[in-house]
């Protein structure tokens, strides 16, 4: 009898609790997943921006959840949607767009941005940063933490080797010649990472040789194009022929430390590492655009904002507000200064904060200046598999298991099989 009373009382309390919380939440609640793929206290900066947003928008409650790297963020977001507890928006890889469309997970911004003001806002971003997010005639992703590859170099090592520290290598030949002068016992001329995101680094080399890796519809790849093969041969020759780079694969996660500890004079890395390198470098360092062959070139990289499909009208409006806030010129400037990522619009670079920062630290402008030589990052249907095919081919060539030509032809053959269904 007592037991039945206890159960009755408990269930009343629970019901009351649920009812009261339902009445209390006139607020719109947003859950946002975001990844961090570079060094530095980025989660603190995101939390700061979100707190500022909540102050200005008291009826929107934002839970920003750090989700690991780009793969983890995508997996977590999709798993949450499948489980029914969705997030409303997320920052995910700019190149996840085709997979997300195939999973019917996202809605295009072009469909929500109905007012004149919204359309103007969509047009305010750098066009190079919109390439990966635009397909099927619509805009699916809005830039947030975008980057290009830049070449960090140790000015003191340049001086020691008798090179002008204000003249980093401008082209492939200079990279090799200067690299040779900079390589000695305990020190390498240059390091290009070949784990983590080898296809990204390779996209730069291919563009510099005048080729792209895929078409803009995501249905064709060009891995066995003659110029693409030449780019991989050059990468391999840096270690095998010119000996300015270590043999085998070079680890993405430890490369920054290698540079900071003086084991390499130059490193190719994301501009998102800029602020961390700046804080931790005990030597004078510079940042330069990547060297050219036929032209300068770099892929864009990083993450865009996406809005999920399983969202209510109110949640979409709130998400738009949050995204506009996070990508506003002032906040984009804050983000860029705190991380090294590129400011996402021309207006971001017109803000006083960013202009002063660049005056004191001109390196911060290199990535943005390089945008005019930028190309879209490797992105196709079945992007995960295709990316792995290219990654495996690059690594096989660099460790000497296959010749660059054989590796790339193999990858292209397999990629064509995968994409046949989409033609």
């Amino acid at each position, binding site marked *: 009898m007592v037991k039945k009373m206890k159960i009755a009382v408990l269930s009343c309390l629970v019901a009351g609790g649920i009812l009261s919380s339902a009445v209390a939440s006139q607020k719109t609640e947003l859950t946002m997943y975001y990844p961090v793929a570079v060094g530095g206290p980025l989660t603190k900066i995101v939390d700061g921006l979100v707190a500022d947003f909540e102050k200005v928008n008291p009826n929107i409650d934002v839970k920003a959840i750090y989700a690991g790297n780009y793969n983890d963020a995508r997996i977590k977001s999709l798993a949450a949607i499948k489980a029914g507890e969705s997030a409303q928006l997320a920052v995910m890889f700019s190149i996840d767009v085709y997979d997300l469309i195939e*999973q019917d997970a996202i809605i295009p911004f072009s469909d929500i941005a109905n007012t004149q003001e919204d359309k103007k806002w969509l047009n305010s971003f750098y066009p190079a940063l919109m390439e990966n997010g635009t397909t099927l005639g619509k805009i699916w992703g809005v830039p947030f933490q975008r980057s290009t590859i830049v070449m960090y170099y140790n000015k003191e090592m340049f001086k020691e080797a008798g090179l002008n520290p204000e003249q980093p290598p401008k082209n492939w030949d200079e990279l090799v010649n200067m690299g040779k002068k900079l390589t000695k016992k305990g020190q390498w001329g240059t390091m290009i990472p070949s784990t983590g995101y080898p296809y990204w680094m390779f996209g730069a080399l291919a563009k510099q040789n005048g080729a792209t890796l895929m078409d803009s519809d995501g249905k064709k790849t060009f891995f066995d194009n003659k110029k693409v093969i030449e780019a991989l041969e050059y990468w391999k020759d840096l270690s095998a022929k010119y000996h300015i780079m*270590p043999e*085998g694969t*070079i*680890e993405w996660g430890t490369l920054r430390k290698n540079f900071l500890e003086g084991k390499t004079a130059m490193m190719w890395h994301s501009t998102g590492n800029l602020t961390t390198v700046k804080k931790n470098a005990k030597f004078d360092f510079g940042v330069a655009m990547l060297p050219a062959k036929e032209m300068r070139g770099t892929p864009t990289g990083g993450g865009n904002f996406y809005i999920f499909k399983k969202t209510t009208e109110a949640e979409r409006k709130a998400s738009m507000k949050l995204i506009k806030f996070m990508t506003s010129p002032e906040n984009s400037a804050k983000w860029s200064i705190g991380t090294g990522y590129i400011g996402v619009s021309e207006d971001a670079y017109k803000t006083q904060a960013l202009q002063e920062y660049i005056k004191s630290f001109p390196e911060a402008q290199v990535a943005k200046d390089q945008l005019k030589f930028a190309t879209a990052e490797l992105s196709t249907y079945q992007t995960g598999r295709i990316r792995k095919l290219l990654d495996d*081919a690059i690594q096989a060539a660099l*460790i000497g298991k296959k010749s660059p030509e054989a590796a790339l032809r193999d990858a292209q053959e397999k990629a064509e099989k995968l994409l046949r269904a989409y033609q």
Partner: protein
Amino acid sequence: MKHLYGWLLLMPAFTLLVMFTHYPAIATLLDSFYTNGTVIRPKLFVGFDNYSFMLDDEVFITTLKNTMYFALGTVPLAIILSLIMALFVNQKIRGKGIVRLAYFTPTILPMVAVANIWMFFYAPQIGLVNKVIEFLGFTSINWLGNSNTVLEALMVMTIWKEAGFFMIFYLAALQSLPKELYEAAKIEGASSWKCFWQITFPLVMPTTFFIMINAMLNAFKLVDHLFILTKGGPDNASNLLLYYIYETAFSFFDYAYAATLTVVLLLILILVSLLQFSVLEKRIHYK
């Protein structure tokens, strides 16, 4: 009535077992007979097509080879090392407690933390291992970036992590051995080597068997370090079956193929367990 009571007592455990073990296993098996369904293209029944695709998949063959090699490399060495450690700390030495703690510490650390630490141990120019190698006058080796050394490097790290855990079991077994046997052996003039092989080793066989099963399962289950250290590279040289399953399911979104691979993994584990239970159990002396 008695039967009903018995079934009711079984119900909770039985429900959980079915929900989390049997039902998923059968669902996976069924999934492997269909193509992958996306929202745009719904799934179709294709029978054994996924399996024939799998047999043609070079990456699958490579992961299978790697996993077998990894298991063969880690299991015997982990057993031997943990037995030696247990014999060592079972003696009356000073600081016995501290040595036992030191041996057990790797087990307490989460695998992801261990992997992050060892990434810097193995790093070519700045890592601890290579700094020692260079101090001794040799050139540094790219342990994780070279397909000839990557699996071996991972095995060393895995054994380092596991041995302490297995040592505890051996220690408990050793301490439960009756001392009269050793006294009798000493009276008969047996050397310590003979003591070990004729008395200790046979009597701890049940523990050895238990550890062998655990180490074998770990060799298939533990892939956390791959996420941090190599992501299966370079060029699939360190790709293990479970990691490939994860990649297929969550990076490639190919759930049907991942189900196929999972069925294979399950079959291998069942076979290995059956083998161990039938062949080896006959040789074990239980009290």
